[in-house]
C-alpha cells in the first residue's frame, strides 16, 4: 500500500491539506500526517517514497498516484530550497510525525535531556554559555548568562517560561516548531529547568495559534513521564501583542493586565510570582537539545559570524515567490535570501523594500541588501533581526502608509504604561496624516491654549519632519519596552529611504 505523507501544520491545513489527505485515504493510501518541510509555496506538499508533489489539490490526486502530472518535484530532501539550508532546530521538519514519541526517539530525541541530567547543572549552563546561543526572540541576550543568573538567584521556587507569543507579522518559526516538533521544545525546557532548578514551566501561546495550542497540550500529556519531575502547562494569550514582551507576558500568566514592568528587577531575579524565572523564546529553547547533544556545543559555536553564533531559522514572507522557513548559519546576506533563495516577489514586480524583524523592524531598501544576517551588522545599520522574519514588498508599497501603520499598530497595542508609547504613537499617526494632507492645517493639539511651548502659526513641512524625528527620538529612548522603543525604526527608515512617498498624498488614493 502506498504511504502518503502530508503536513498537518496550520499553514498546510489552511492551504487545503485536510481535503487532499482525505482524498488519498479514500483512494486506499495510508496517510501519514507529518510536520511541514517549510516550503510554503508548495503546500499542500505530498511526499511518496521521498518524491514530492505540490502544491496539490484534490483534483491532482489520481495523477500523483499514477506517478505523472505536472506537480512532480523530484526528491524533496534534495530540493534546492532544502539542500541549501543548515537545519539544526528544524532538522526533523517534514520528516517526523509531530506527536509520535517513537519518531522523536528514533531521531535523537531525549538524548540531550538524558545527557544533561547525568551532569551537574553548572556543567549544563557552561555548555550553553560556550555555545554562544543568544535569545532568538529579538533581544539577542546570551541564553547561558540568563540561566546562570536564575540558577544563582536565591529561592527554591523557580520557573521556566517559554515565550510563544509570536505576534510579529512575517514570523511563523515558533508556530512551525510547536506544531511540527513539540517534543524538542519540551526537551529544551526540561533541560533549562534542570539547569536552573525549576519545577514548573509555562508555555505562553497566543490565542491566534489554536493548532499549536492543541499540539502542545497533547505533547505535554504524552511526554509527561519523560519530563517528570518537571511539569509544563500551556497558557493561552488573549490577543494582546504587547504580551510578547517578557514582563507583560509574566503579568498575563499571573492573571493581570498585560502591562510592561519596569526593569530592574530582571525576571531572572524576580519574575513570575516574584520568583527567579527563565524567559526564553521557543527557538532559543528548541536549540538547546542540539547544543546538549553528544556532539556538543562546539559545532554550534563554529557556525555563524562574529558574536552571532549558530543557525537562525529565517522566515521568508510577504510578497515573495518562494516563501517559507529557511534555517541557516548567521552571515547570509539579504540579497541571497530575497532574490536568490526567495526568487524575488510573488507578484513579479521589482522589490521595493523588506522589513526584517516584525512590525518594529526597519524597512531596508535593495541598495542595502548586502547586509549580512548578524545581530551587530543589523544594529549598526539602524535595523534589527528581531525574530528573523523577512517581509518583502513590491514597488506598489506605499512606505508612508506603512509608516503610519506602524504608529497606528503601536497605538492599538500599547499597554498604556509609559507616556511616549501611549501618546506618542497617536501623535505620530496624526503627524503623518498632516504631512500628507493636501491642505496644511495647524496641529489642533498644538493650538490648544495650555500648550504654551508649541508654535501657534502653521508649521512648515520641514518643521513637521523635524517634529516627527523628535517624537521618534523621545519614543526610542523614553519608552519602557520595545513596542514604543522600536516603533521609530520602521517610521524613520521609511522616511529616510523613501522620502518621496511622504509627499502630499493624491486624495483619490484612499488608504
Amino acid at each position, binding site marked *: 500500500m502506498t504511504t502518503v505523507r502530508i503536513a498537518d501544520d*496550520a*499553514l498546510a*491545513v*489552511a*492551504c487545503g491539506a485536510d481535503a487532499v489527505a482525505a482524498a488519498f485515504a479514500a483512494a486506499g493510501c495510508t496517510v501519514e500526517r507529518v510536520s511541514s518541510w517549510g516550503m*510554503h*509555496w508548495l*503546500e499542500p506538499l505530498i511526499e511518496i517514497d521521498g518524491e514530492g508533489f505540490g502544491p496539490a489539490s484534490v483534483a491532482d490526486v489520481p495523477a500523483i498516484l499514477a506517478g505523472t502530472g505536472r506537480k512532480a518535484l523530484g526528491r524533496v530532501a534534495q530540493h534546492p530550497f532544502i539542500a541549501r539550508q543548515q537545519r539544526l532546530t528544524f532538522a526533523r521538519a517534514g520528516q517526523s510525525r509531530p506527536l509520535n514519541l517513537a519518531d522523536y526517539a528514533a531521531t535523537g530525541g531525549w538524548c540531550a535531556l538524558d545527557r544533561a541530567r547525568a551532569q551537574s547543572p553548572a556543567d549544563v549552563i557552561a555548555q550553553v554559555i560556550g555555545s554562544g546561543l543568544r535569545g532568538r526572540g529579538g533581544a539577542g541576550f546570551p541564553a547561558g548568562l540568563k540561566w546562570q543568573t536564575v540558577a544563582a538567584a536565591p529561592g527554591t521556587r523557580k520557573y521556566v517560561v517559554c515565550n510563544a507569543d*509570536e*505576534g*510579529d*507579522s*512575517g*514570523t*511563523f518559526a515558533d*508556530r512551525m516548531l510547536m506544531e511540527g516538533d513539540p517534543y524538542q521544545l519540551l526537551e529544551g525546557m526540561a533541560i533549562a529547568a534542570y539547569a536552573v532548578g525549576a519545577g*514548573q514551566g509555562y508555555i505562553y501561546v497566543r*490565542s*491566534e*495559534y*489554536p*493548532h499549536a495550542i492543541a499540539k502542545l497540550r497533547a505533547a505535554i500529556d504524552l511526554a509527561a513521564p519523560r519530563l517528570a519531575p518537571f511539569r509544563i*502547562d500551556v*497558557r*493561552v*494569550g*488573549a*490577543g*494582546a*501583542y504587547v504580551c510578547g514582551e517578557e514582563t507583560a507576558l509574566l503579568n*498575563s*500568566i*499571573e*492573571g*493581570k*493586565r*498585560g*502591562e510592561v514592568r519596569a526593569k530592574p528587577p530582571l525576571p531572572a531575579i524576580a519574575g513570575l*510570582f516574584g520568583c527567579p524565572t527563565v524567559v526564553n523564546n521557543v527557538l532559543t529553547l528548541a536549540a538547546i537539545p542540539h547544543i546538549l547533544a553528544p556532539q556538543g556545543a562546539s559545532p554550534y559555536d563554529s557556525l555563524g559570524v562574529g558574536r552571532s553564533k549558530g543557525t537562525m531559522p529565517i*522566515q*521568508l*514572507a*510577504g*510578497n*515573495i515567490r518562494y*516563501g*517559507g522557513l529557511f534555517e541557516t548559519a548567521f552571515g547570509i546576506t539579504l540579497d541571497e535570501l530575497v532574490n536568490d533563495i526567495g526568487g524575488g516577489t*510573488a507578484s513579479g514586480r521589482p522589490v521595493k523594500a523588506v522589513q526584517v524583524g516584525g*512590525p518594529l523592524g526597519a524597512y531596508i531598501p535593495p541598495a542595502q541588501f548586502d547586509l549580512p544576517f548578524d545581530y551587530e551588522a543589523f544594529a549598526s545599520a539602524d535595523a534589527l533581526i528581531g525574530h528573523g*522574519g523577512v*517581509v*518583502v*514588498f*513590491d514597488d506598489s*508599497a506605499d512606505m508612508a502608509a*506603512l509608516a503610519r*501603520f506602524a504608529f497606528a*499598530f503601536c497605538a492599538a497595542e500599547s*499597554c498604556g504604561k509609559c507616556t511616549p508609547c501611549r501618546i506618542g504613537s497617536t501623535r505620530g499617526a496624526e503627524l503623518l496624516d498632516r504631512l500628507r494632507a493636501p491642505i496644511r492645517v495647524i496641529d489642533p493639539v498644538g493650538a490648544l491654549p495650555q500648550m504654551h511651548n508649541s508654535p501657534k502659526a502653521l508649521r512648515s513641512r520641514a518643521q513637521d519632519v523635524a517634529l516627527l524625528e523628535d517624537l521618534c527620538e523621545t519614543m526610542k529612548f523614553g519608552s519602557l519596552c520595545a513596542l514604543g522603543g522600536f516603533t521609530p525604526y520602521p517610521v524613520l527608515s521609511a522616511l529616510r529611504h523613501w522620502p518621496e512617498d511622504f509627499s502630499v498624498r493624491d486624495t483619490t488614493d484612499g*488608504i
Partner: protein
Amino acid sequence: MSDVMDAEDKLAGIIAVHRGHEGPLLPILHDVQAAFGCIDPAAERAIAHALNVSRAEVHGVVSFYHDFVSAPDPRPHVQLCRAEACQARGAEALVPSARSAAGERVRLSDVYCLGLCSVGPAARVGGNLYARLDQAALVALVESA
C-alpha cells in the same frame, strides 16, 4: 429561571476547575468567554468574589485583552489578517468587498498575524484558517460564515 441557574452552575464549574491553579484568572476568562460569548458584569462579580480580588481588577483584565468582550455578539465572526505580510500580498485591497459582503450579518474584524505570512491574504473563522485568499474566495468565505 432554570436557565439562570444553569448559567450560574456553569460559571461556578469553570471557576472550580481553575481556582486551585497558579494565576487562574486568564484561564477562567477564556472558558467563560467561550461558554457564554462574553464576560458580563455579573460574571466579573462572581469571578472576583471567588478569587478574592476586586471587581475592578477583574474588569481591568477583561477590558485589556482584545479577545474578551463584555456583551455577546452572536453573529458569525470572520477575522481578516491585516498585518504587514498580508498587506504586502494585497490584503488591503480585499477589505471593501469583504465589508460589503459582511454587511450587518457577519462580524468582520481585523487580526494582526495568523502566522500564515508566506501564503496570505489569510483569514480565520472559528478554529478554521484560510490562506491564499483572493477577492472571490474571501467574499465566498464571508457569505458562507
